[in-house]
């Protein structure tokens, strides 16, 4: 511990056994890590939700812009395609919203609830630390008097110091024991707690993506009867582009 340099010349016995301290540090460390994780997860979920919403919004914008284009008035095929695309995009948006709601309900909120436990824990740990400090201080005092000559006032003071020490020590020990007992329980409770959330999250994604897959699968079938492969399209595009570049009205540089 950090106060080791200050106790030169007065070798004190460790009032809290090293193993206990280590156990405590380990358990609390795990919980602190868990807290950090939940906080980060909350942030990421928020980001994820925002990104999801932004994505479906921008997707809808693609089709809306296409739909509002004058090209649609001139080209029936194009209009049909764009309308189909628009429908698909809107449905995607709806499903996305549903997914986000679902995640909000089954993941984000439980996560928040779980996260609200940590302040209490930290407070409890702080109280334990406080108690430990008191305990140390009084212990030091007692030891100081013990080392002194046993004169009357010293004995009185020693007695008083001992009297003061006792409840503080009991308090600390109770707190320490309680925390050592309860922290692992709390830590383990996360498994039961988050497993359903995890499953729900994955499930929401699966549902969403399978719906999307279906929607876009239908759309491709509807729009793309010949079923061009990507390579074919790429080649066609390249050919058309070259055709365009060969036009004299097109600037070639």
């Amino acid at each position: 511990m950090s106060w080791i340099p200050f106790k030169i010349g007065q070798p004190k016995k460790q009032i809290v056994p090293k193993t206990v301290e280590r156990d405590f540090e380990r358990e609390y460390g795990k919980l602190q890590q868990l807290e950090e994780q939940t906080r980060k997860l909350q942030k990421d979920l928020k980001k994820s939700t925002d990104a999801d919403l932004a994505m479906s919004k921008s997707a809808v914008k693609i089709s809306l812009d296409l739909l509002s284009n004058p090209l649609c008035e001139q080209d029936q095929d194009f209009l049909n395609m764009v309308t189909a695309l628009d429908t698909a995009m809107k449905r995607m948006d709806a499903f996305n919203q549903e997914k986000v709601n679902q995640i909000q309900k089954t993941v984000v909120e439980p996560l928040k609830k779980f996260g609200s436990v940590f302040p209490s824990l930290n407070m409890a740990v702080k109280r334990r630390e406080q108690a430990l400090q008191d305990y140390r201080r009084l212990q030091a005092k007692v030891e100081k008097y013990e080392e002194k000559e046993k004169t009357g006032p010293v004995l009185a003071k020693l007695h008083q110091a001992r009297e003061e020490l006792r409840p503080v020590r009991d308090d600390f020990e109770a707190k320490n024991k309680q925390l050592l007992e309860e922290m692992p329980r709390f830590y383990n409770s996360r498994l039961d707690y988050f497993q359903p959330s995890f499953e729900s999250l994955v499930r929401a994604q699966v549902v969403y993506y399978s719906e999307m897959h279906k929607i876009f699968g239908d759309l491709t079938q509807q729009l793309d009867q010949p079923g061009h492969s990507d390579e074919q399209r790429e080649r066609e595009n390249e050919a058309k582009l070259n055709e365009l570049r060969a036009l004299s009205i097109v600037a070639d540089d």
Partner: protein
Amino acid sequence: MEHEEATGKGNMGTKKKNLTFLRSRLYMLERRKTDTVVESSVSGDHAGTLRRSQSDRTEYNQKLQEKMTPQAGRAAEALTQEEAEHQTRRMMARRSKVIEELVQTERDYLKDLELCIKEVVQPLRNKQIDRLDVDSLFSNIESVHQISAKLLSLLEEATADVEPAMQVIGEVFLQIKGPLEDTYKIYCYHHDTAHSVLESYEKEEELKQQLSLCVQSLQNIYMQEGKPNLTNMSSLLIKPIQRVTKYPLLLCELRNSTPPSHPDFRALEDAFTAVKDINVNINELKRWKDLVLKYKKNDEEESLKDKLSKLSIHSISKKSKRVTNYLKILTRGESQVKDSTFNREEKLFRSLEKTARHCVKNISFCLQHIQDAMHFALQSVLQLQEISCTKDEEEGVQPEAPGNAPYPCDDFVAHLQKLVLTPLSALLSLFPGPQKLIQKRYDKLLDYNSYLQRAAGEESDLAKKEYEALNAQLVEELQVFNQAARKILLNCLCSFITLLRDLMGVKQQLYSAAAPVTLLVSNIFEMQNRVLEEVQNLNFMKDNSATFIERKLSFEKKKPVQILPEVPRQTDTHRSKLLSTYSIEELYQAKRKCNATQEYDINLLEGELVAVMEQKDPLGSTSRWLVDTGLIKGYVYSSFLKPYNPAKVQKAGAENRSCDDDFDNISLFVSSRPTRNSVTSTPEGSISDSSSSLSGTCGKFETNGTDVDSFQEVDEQIFYAVHAFEARSNCELSLQEYQRVHILRFCDLSGNKEWWLAEAQGQKGYVPANYLGKMTYA
């Protein structure tokens, strides 16, 4: 021809009555002869040819009709037949010569090309000299070679082993005209640039050497064959152009030497037209290119200085004229030269441009968001997984290894870039050129309009020509452009959708590999609530929540906490006891409220009376004094204390005291007193001697001359409850809002003025003073 005439003369005597017919026929033949000359000379004029070939065809039909009509004389028929047969024979002979020439020249040409590719193009390509761009020199000479080879093989196929009467050459050309045009268009289109590139290369010594080396080897071959006709690089380059202009001439000659009855005649006519069209198109292409280049250059490569230098009076007047013209058209609605096709195409073009622009923008936005969404979703899933699963447990079971997960997204991004965004951006980059030209076309149109109105001859012609050239070019190419652009756009959208589908599919598989058993939402809540309850039951949670609640309570209602003091307050009993026990020097009074901080400390309220027993604590510090409150003994910081001055106290605490007095007079006091004591559970036996000592103090205070009456008046005052108040113990009184209460005492037993003893509807108890408002009878 002379032969024909001779036969005509020979028959003149016998067939006199057919002379007129013959003459007309002769005339027609004559005319055809001159016509062909005219035709070959004006081979650039497309429309003229069309008309001509049409007239030829009608003439041919006429002749057929004549043949069919039975009323024509037998003799005349016989003569025509004989004459025609003779003529046909002659023509066929010539025809075979022409064909031979055609095939032979094609063969030579092909060989030239072959040699050129083998000796010049290939070595240059193989050398891979950095600054030497072989493609810009020779562009598509390989495909020119291919098409020539194809043509030759087709020609050979059509001529070899076929009866001369059945040889159909025209078909060959008709068959190949599409690729022929495309190939030569490209070559001719680039020839100008190639030429200038060549010139620039010849300025550099190294490149020039390379080139001349190749040409030298080619020349050697020609020398060996005895055809030293090649001089330099540029003559090599121009060969295909020379060849393509040769085709119409050859075909024209071939057609002229083909008898109309020959099956090839019609085909040749068509082929001739087609080949001529090819040449016209190539020429037009070059002309347009020049025009386009002129206007394109205008905007692109000009610095500000150039622009300023160009700003001549002429250009200013031209521009201002355009503006006024434009305004005229806008305001007066004057008749204007219109081209509906162009307008339609232009509209389409602009919509396409807008669409493409929007698509690029939106799709790239969307891509960005998709990337983010996928990334964060995956990350949160992984994190949650990490939280919800212990590491040693089911590590292998979870399929979402972080390593393979991000790939589908990357894949998607790459594909989207390749299949959608790249073509679309490429397409988008092609729009400005036509836009500029469209603008220019409008300018020219305005010029044209203004000249139309003033009907100025030559200028009008020029303006008209420029406008028409631009317009024709735009109309034609915009159609192609629009179609191609639309196709690309549709393709890209299809690709986009397909890619989305694939992405969704991949994602679905990815996640469903980890798909858990179905859980109902309520089920989740139940499970989680149970766990959470367990957690709440843990001690540290309870401790905390208790303090939380306490703090919350104390925050909301500060007073209730004060009514539940841990230590009983000093009462008058104790005061009197102190006054009687200790001398006045030993008596001190608390200057302000003092809270216990250490063990054996006592709490004091402001104004409380204490007797100092020892002016130090057990450790010898004089800052802490041992005092007696009459109720308890303990330590207090001396700084909180001041010497007791009875007279001052009486004045300062008059109110308190008098309240106490009033209190005594009320019957309630007797009943309320024990309850209070029971609540505070005073350890001392203060109750037993309370009455005696109380009366003592009362007497004492009364003698001190406080104005009792005035307080009794106040006492009678009626207050009302501003807020509802609920009693938390039986020494408090519940109040309804606006309920009227009599205030019996304006402080509680310990002199706290924030709690008043009130009476309402026969019940008595303490209420917080700030809940009450004074009732006025106004």
